[in-house]
C-alpha cells in the first residue's frame, strides 16, 4: 500500500517536473503586440487591406511592414486606436481605402439570383446560405458589410443596403477630441 503511494507520487513528481521544465524550456514566444493589434481590428476578415484576414494584417503591422490606415471597416477610429497603441502619428485612411461608408449589409435580389454559389465561396464569415441552382440569401446578423461578395456575382444581384441607426444598434461614438499634452 505504502509502496503504491510512493511509486505513484514519484511518477507524478517526475512527470510533473519534466512537463514543468519543458513548459519553461520550450516556451514559444507569441508576440503580444500582434494580439493587441488584432484586438483593435474589426475582425471582419474582409481582406480589403490586402492581407488575407485581420490576424495577418496585425502581424504585418507589428513587423512594421504595413501602414496602420488600410482598414476601411475599422475606419479613422480604428486607425486612431492603432496610432495610440503603437505611438505612431495618426493617419487618415489611405486614399484607395478612403471612402468610409455607413455600415451596410449585403442584400441579394432573390428574383435575379441564379444560384451559382460564387458569393457563398467569397463570403469570409459564411453569412450567405443557399446551394447550387437554389436562390441564396444573406443572414444579415452575420454580414459584416465587407463587399467581397459583390465582384464574383455574375448577375450583379447583390446590393449593399445601408443600416439605419436604430436604438438597438446605436453605439457610443469613440471620443474624437484630441488629448492635449499638458506641459
Amino acid at each position, binding site marked *: 500500500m505504502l509502496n503504491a503511494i510512493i*511509486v505513484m507520487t514519484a*511518477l*507524478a513528481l517526475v*512527470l510533473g517536473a*519534466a*512537463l514543468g521544465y*519543458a513548459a519553461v524550456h*520550450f*516556451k514559444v514566444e507569441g508576440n503580444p503586440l500582434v494580439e493587441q493589434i488584432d484586438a483593435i481590428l474589426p475582425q471582419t476578415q474582409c481582406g480589403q487591406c490586402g492581407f488575407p484576414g485581420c490576424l495577418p494584417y496585425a502581424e504585418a503591422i507589428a513587423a512594421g511592414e504595413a501602414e496602420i490606415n488600410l482598414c476601411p471597416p475599422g475606419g479613422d477610429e480604428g486607425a486612431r486606436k492603432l496610432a495610440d497603441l503603437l505611438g505612431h502619428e495618426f493617419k487618415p485612411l489611405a486614399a484607395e481605402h478612403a471612402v468610409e461608408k455607413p455600415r451596410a449589409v449585403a442584400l441579394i435580389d432573390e428574383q435575379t439570383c441564379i444560384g451559382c454559389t460564387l458569393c457563398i465561396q467569397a463570403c469570409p464569415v459564411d453569412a450567405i446560405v443557399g446551394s447550387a441552382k437554389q436562390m441564396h440569401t444573406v443572414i444579415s446578423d452575420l454580414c459584416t458589410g465587407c463587399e467581397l461578395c459583390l465582384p464574383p456575382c455574375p448577375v450583379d444581384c447583390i446590393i449593399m443596403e445601408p443600416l439605419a441607426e436604430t436604438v438597438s444598434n446605436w453605439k457610443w461614438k469613440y471620443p474624437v477630441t484630441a488629448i492635449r499634452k499638458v506641459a
Partner: protein
Amino acid sequence: MSYFFVILSAVLVNNVVFVRILGLCPFMGVSKKLSTAVGMGAATTFVLTLAAGASYLVDHYLLAPFELDYLRTLSFIVVIAAIVQLTELVIHKTSPLLHQVLGIYLPLITTNCAVLGIPLLNVSLGYGLLESLLFGFGSSLGFTLALVLFASIRERLDGADVPIAFRGMPIALITAGFMSLAFMGFAGLDRFN
C-alpha cells in the same frame, strides 16, 4: 524475422481498428477528409510509438519490482497524458510547421483508447522493449492505414447515391463493418514463423 512478423501482425492481421476494435472514436470522427485523416494518423504514430516504449519502461522498472501490477492502467494513463503534453510542447518549439499540421489532433490523442490499449497488450503479450516499440509503431501504422482507407471511401461516399435512411453515419458504420470483414482475411498470415 520475428520482428518483421510483429509489425506485420500489428498492421494487417491484428489491425488495431478493424480486428481489435480499438480507437473507434477518432476512426469515426476524423475520417471525413483524407487530409485530416493523414494528420491524425501521423500524430498517433508518433505518440503511440513513444507511449509503447515509455510504458514498457514504467512497467518493467517501476511497477514490476514493487509488484504493483494493479496500478498498471492508472500509471499508463498518467504516462501517456504526460507524453502527449510533452510532445506538443517540444514540437511547438522545434517544428512550428509540424505543429500546424498536427494541430488539435495531438491533444486529442490523450483520449484515444488505442494508445492505452497497445501498451496494455504489450504487457499481456510479454513483449520486450524493442518488440514493444515495434508493436506500437506497427499498430499505429495499422491505425493510419485504416483511417486513410476509410477516409478515402467516405470522401467517395459523399458523392454516392445512398438511400436517405442510410446517409451519413449509418453507411459509414456499415462501410467500417465491411472493411473489418475484409481485414479478417489476413487472419493467420502471421502464423508462418
